[in-house]
């Protein structure tokens, strides 16, 4: 009956194993700490945290879940990029193929779509809980500001993705949305005081967003590049700042 312990010893007691795993798994305080600090991903956390910060009834886990959904969207999004080309002659057909031809394509597209909606919801609940626990109060004021920018970026991520299927739903939703830019005071050609800056349909802020006066190929390409590269990069950078600040500001807020 010494088979299993022997086997475990064989597997773990050698140079290769120990080069990867730096510590044993016996339940000791030291190993619990090492589990966190010797792991590049987990050491986002400190080795010990105040107990109330681990309570789901305190954080509702909503920040963490928002982050997780962001990762989920990254993975499903990359897979979608294998099948989708942001070309007005192809985009819609690519989505139809995903729905009817590509193995698991429908499942993939559905999960990316519903994940996006879920993220918008969880980020707004996260903000709500941070407000209710007063966690934006000193010293965490700036992290709240970073959070608000992340909130806006989450909306923009979802919004830019909406156009990509190039169907009636997305096309007209983006039409409604970007038409607002026309009315920007000073900067949109239909906005108040825009004559001061000489705004026309072909030089105002909406033109800059769409790369044209209508939603055409350049608009699709812009939505795609912002959606897949621009905004995710900025959002990732800000999330790093956000998490780093949570720790620098003394960990999850709590009664002193």
């Amino acid at each position, binding site marked *: 009956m010494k088979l299993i312990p022997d086997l475990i010893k064989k597997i773990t007691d050698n140079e290769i194993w120990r080069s990867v795993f730096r510590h044993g798994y016996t339940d000791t305080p030291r190993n619990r700490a090492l589990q966190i600090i010797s792991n590049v991903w987990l050491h986002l956390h400190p080795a010990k945290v105040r107990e109330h910060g681990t309570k789901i009834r305190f954080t509702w886990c909503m920040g*963490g879940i928002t982050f997780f959904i962001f990762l989920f969207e990254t993975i499903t999004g990359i897979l979608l990029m294998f099948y989708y080309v942001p070309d007005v002659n192809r985009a819609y057909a690519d989505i139809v193929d995903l729905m009817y031809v590509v193995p698991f394509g429908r499942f993939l597209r559905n999960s990316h779509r519903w994940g996006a909606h879920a993220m918008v919801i969880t980020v707004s609940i996260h903000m709500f809980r941070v407000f209710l626990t007063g966690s934006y109060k000193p010293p965490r004021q700036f992290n709240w500001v970073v959070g608000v920018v992340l909130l806006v970026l989450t909306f923009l991520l979802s919004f830019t993705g909406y156009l990509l299927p190039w169907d009636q739903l997305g096309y007209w939703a983006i039409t409604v949305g970007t038409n607002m830019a026309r009315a920007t005071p000073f900067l949109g050609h239909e906005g108040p005081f825009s004559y001061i800056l000489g705004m026309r349909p072909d030089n105002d802020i909406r033109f800059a967003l769409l790369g044209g006066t209508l939603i055409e190929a350049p608009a699709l390409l812009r939505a795609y590049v912002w959606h897949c590269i621009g905004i995710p990069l900025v959002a990732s950078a800000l999330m790093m700042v956000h998490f780093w600040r949570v720790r620098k500001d003394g960990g999850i807020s709590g009664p002193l």
Partner: protein
Amino acid sequence: MEVRQEKKGLVEFKDDKVFTWPTLVAKEFLAAIFVTVGLLFYSYFVDAPLRELSNPGQAENPAKAPWYFLGLQEVLVYFDPWYAGVALPSIIILGLILIPYLDNNPKGNGYYTFSERKFAVTTFVFGYILWYILIYIGTALRGPFWAFFWPWEQWTHDFPTPPPLHDLPLPLGIVLLGGFYFAGLALPALVKREFFQKLGVIRYSITMGLLLTMVGTVIKMVFRLAFNVKYIIATPWINI
């Protein structure tokens, strides 16, 4: 661990620390699993929407922005696009960013409480709920031509007869709007002196300015619905 508490000297935290592994990490893994299973389960049964190929010549009716912007699209019924689509969202974002710097009440930092910060919580919750109510109206209760339908009503494609809207005379409008902000700033400062003094004049003015803008937006909607007022202030350059 003391954070900007120099003035008060070192603050001792209660030593209620636990190991992150496994206390926290286990919960995070569980949450990740639940979310994944939930999303995949939902995605297996419910298909993401896909309509016909986009056609610039044939507008959707109603054409709706994504649901999280439908609150703003609903405000568009009552305000010009420069306000509903640009100024209002900018003010909301700016207001959110300013919250930590406006709210100087030291209580309620890091725990749930209503009684210690009634004003802050009430204002925020009001705005939060308002945002979602407007989204609900825009999503569920607006049909073709953005006409209003109750949930139990069938959508029709009749163009709704526009109500006979009229503008307020300019002097009246200016007096009303100016008076609203003036009274809104002055009265609470006089009645609630303590509130005013705690905030100081700058914080107080910005806080009340933002609050009045939020409330004013709702009041304008009521004006439209009750009295068919199109604009409070109508000028050739800008309408409110």
